[in-house]
């Protein structure tokens, strides 16, 4: 376990050292990613549902220790992140080389650091460890977001850092300290750590936590996500479709299951109120996404919307809801990363960023647009893609909780996501006539490495539809009260 966290950090140092040898450096990246994946798989095969391995590392304050533990949700997250890192490394090589980007060493090293932090979050045994790695993740991704070094990148970076640090220090830290003060411990426990006597402030505490976890992009603290789109596509893909935002919703799920306990969550007054905030986020973000012409910004708002689905699952606090949230964490990740890979591929090959210019692109870039179609279907939640299962569980969860208004919002959200994703995919297949034609001279498919990566993730969307059991059983192991 400790090794799993340490490997990416060591990898980062190695990558930095190999600055002068691009090929070796790229090999180091892929090798580190592969090594991490192997380690995580080993952990997974050893994983027993009743006996979670725990490692206590050292104490920072008396009574507050830093430690690692493996539990089902974290296991899922770790497998997801490490597997997708391997794929993204391949993609990055293609993207970076084709675009001849500067500072590639810095890029690979920071990605490695970010992954280390992500695994740290996944395997955190208590709130403090999680918080430490959460902050490291924010700091490690900042150089990635501002990679281009332009004024726009700098401003985007400011929004990113400002919002994320602001919510985490201003709200989340306060929530953590209050939790420690009230419960006497920060160690995650099944059924919550408040025991039988929840503090009077639990309702407010829930609000602090939910808004403090800025990476979950709950409105109004969502602005950092579109602002971070100034980053290069592989960054957006891995970090903002998978690692950073998934870390956010992962934390939300963990807090509601292991800090509050699902019973407590459903009893709090603020639960309903927050549920509506999340539902509003789903719809509002989708509406904004409809109006975006820049493809990456559209995808960003789509992510904001999809994240709130998971938050809804966590807040519903029943078995179906939690399972739906956990599964959606995985299915959304796979679907969204496909979409971002496609966006990057389109940018690299055709230098296009606006949707309005992408008419008829499928002729020139058949593989990319096919993958885009697959990813879109998954995110919308239509068969035969993986998104179906997670949406199904979320719907079941809301019916069980009797929240029919919420159900309406979920369905409207899905409709809207069809509205902003399908046209992009469909119009690419339309014949190129009229003023909206893409410049068709000289556009070829994206770089090979990119294509390999996005085909892999698209296949994963399909695969998870056909074989959802592994994912389901893993997540269902979270001992949740029915």
């Amino acid at each position, binding site marked *: 376990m400790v090794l799993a966290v340490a490997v990416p950090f060591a990898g980062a140092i190695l990558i930095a050292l190999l600055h002068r040898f691009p090929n070796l450096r790229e090999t180091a990246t892929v090798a580190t990613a592969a090594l991490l994946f192997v380690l995580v798989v080993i952990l997974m095969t050893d994983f027993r549902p009743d006996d979670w391995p725990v490692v206590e590392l*050292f104490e920072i304050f008396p009574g507050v220790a830093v430690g690692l533990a493996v539990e089902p949700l974290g296991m899922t997250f770790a497998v997801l992140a490490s597997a997708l890192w391997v794929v993204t490394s391949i993609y990055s090589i293609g993207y970076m080389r084709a675009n001849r980007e500067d500072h590639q060493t810095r890029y690979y090293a920071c990605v490695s650091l970010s992954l280390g932090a992500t695994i740290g979050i996944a395997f955190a045994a208590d709130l403090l460890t999680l918080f*430490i790695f959460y902050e490291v993740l924010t700091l490690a991704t900042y150089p990635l977001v501002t990679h281009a070094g332009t004024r726009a990148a700098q401003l985007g970076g400011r929004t990113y850092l400002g919002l994320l640090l*602001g919510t985490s220090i201003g709200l989340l830290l306060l929530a953590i*300290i209050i939790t420690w003060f009230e419960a006497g411990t920060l160690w995650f426990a099944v059924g919550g750590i408040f025991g039988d006597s929840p503090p009077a402030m639990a309702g407010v505490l829930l609000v602090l936590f939910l808004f403090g976890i800025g990476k979950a992009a709950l409105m109004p603290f969502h602005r950092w996500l579109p602002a971070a789109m100034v980053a290069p596509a592989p960054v957006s893909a891995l970090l903002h479709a998978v690692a950073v935002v998934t870390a956010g919703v992962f934390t939300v799920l963990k807090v509601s299951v292991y800090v509050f306990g699902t019973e407590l969550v459903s009893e709090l007054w603020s639960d309903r109120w927050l549920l509506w905030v999340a539902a509003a986020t789903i719809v509002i973000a989708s509406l904004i996404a409809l109006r975006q012409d820049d493809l990456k910004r559209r995808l960003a708002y789509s992510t904001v919307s999809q994240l709130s689905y998971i938050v809804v699952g966590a807040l519903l606090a029943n078995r179906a809801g939690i399972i739906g949230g956990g599964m959606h964490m995985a299915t959304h990740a796979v679907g969204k990363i496909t979409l971002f890979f496609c966006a990057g591929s389109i940018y690299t090959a055709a230098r296009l960023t606006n949707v309005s210019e992408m008419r008829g692109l499928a002729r020139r870039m058949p593989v990319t647009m096919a993958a885009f179609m697959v990813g879109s279907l998954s995110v919308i939640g239509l068969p035969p893609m993986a998104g179906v299962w997670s949406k199904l569980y979320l719907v079941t969860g809301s019916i069980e909780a009797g929240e029919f208004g919420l159900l309406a919002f979920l369905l409207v959200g899905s409709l809207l996501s069809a509205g902003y994703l399908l046209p992009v995919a469909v119009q690419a297949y339309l014949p190129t006539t009229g003023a909206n034609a893409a410049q068709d001279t000289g556009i070829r498919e994206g770089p090979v490495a990119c294509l390999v990566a996005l085909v892999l993730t698209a296949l994963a969307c399909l695969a998870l539809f056909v074989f959802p059991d592994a994912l389901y059983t893993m997540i269902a192991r979270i001992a949740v009260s029915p």
Partner: protein
Amino acid sequence: MIGAHLPALQVVVPLIAAPLCVLSRRPLAAWTVALIAAWLSLGIAIWLLTQVLDANAPISYALGGWAAPWGIEYRVDAANALVLLIVTAVGAVVVPYALVSTSHEIAPERHHLFYAALMLCLAGLLGIAITGDAFNAFVFLEISSLSSYVLISLGPSRAALTAAFRYLILGTIGATFILIGVGLLYMVTGTLNMADLTYRLAGRGENRTVIVAFAFLTVGITLKLALFPLHLWLPNAYARAPSAVSAFLAATATKVAVYLLLRFVFGIFIAAYALDELPLTAILMPLALIAVFTGSLVAIFQDDVRRMLAYSSVAQVGYIVLGIGFATHTGLTASLIHLFNHAAMKGALFLAMGNVFLRLGSVNLDALAGLGRTMPLTVAAFTLAGLSLIGVPATVGFVSKWYLVVAALERGWWPVAALIVVSSLLAVVYIGRVIEVAYFRPPPERSAPVEAPLSMVVPTWILAGACVYFGLDTSLTIGVASRAATVLLGLAP
């Protein structure tokens, strides 16, 4: 045999080093004397700290063999052992740094005088920390203050002279207030020994003289500590002094003043008033909160980075006093932890700025453009210490903030806890400004600064590394601070 006299040697070693520095005319010779004295003092402080922690009882040393309470007594317990460690550690790091930085900022014929003054200042600060006699504290306070006026006036521009003069006027007023306070206490009790004062003031809280003495002492000490609104001398003094001096003073002078406040208020006056009756909270807390916010806000708008750091110090002193204002064990522990942590953070930040000044000749924000590329080590150290100031976990700043918030929660003051956390966000802004300029703006074409020499980079990194190390391994800081708080509150010897 020497071991028995170590408390006295703690002060005597730097004190004797001062005239030796004056006598050795050449800069290098003077520096060597200062270096040996500083490192010896550090060794003595470490030894004293281990002694106190092992024995779990204070070390008492009668100066000149005259027994207390008529003679002057040096008394080392957990509280001042911590302060001794902080001061000597900072001194031991700054003196090697000063070799190169002063050669750039001060005329060569004055170097030996500079080191002499630095040694006197060190002796004075150590004396305040170690003494157990109230008047002796005043004397050492004046020794350290006078030498710091001299040190500040040696700054590179003529504005350093006015800064030193202003500090002189305000500092002397503060010291005289302390003198009045001590005199009034003597009038009531007939003794100057701190332990004896505690004994004799028991139950005398209603005596008007005692109340007035308390008031004068508090005002005088808060002037030295630069608590809002008595902080006006600090920004100019820190911004215009030589770099090594700013680092040294920022990391030590206010800390020792805080210690003095703690010693008087909690060590002595606690006997006269019960903890709850201390009129402290009502006064110190609002002032501390205002200090935190105004200091941080003004810092955001500064273009001179050292002035920005000086205003940031005003804010950080606010945090320390806030901990005192809570008047609980956790609150005092938080203050003492922040004493240590702020010394490390601010020391590192000012030393980093000294590196910049050496290579660029300016510490204006615009001059720092692109420095992340040309002086990577310095800027990295600045970033690390800056992150600690913000309170990112795994750094010392986080530890302080945590304890402060817990102390606020213990008292049930939720709004204060929220304010503490919100004010950290202000630090993000002013540190962020520097980092953005250093990493994002391209360096100007003509100048090509090189990284500062090793003798300056290493001390900077020692302090910056301490920010991270003590953020993870807090056994030393929290352990000693907690013990010190217990001692100060009179709960244990």
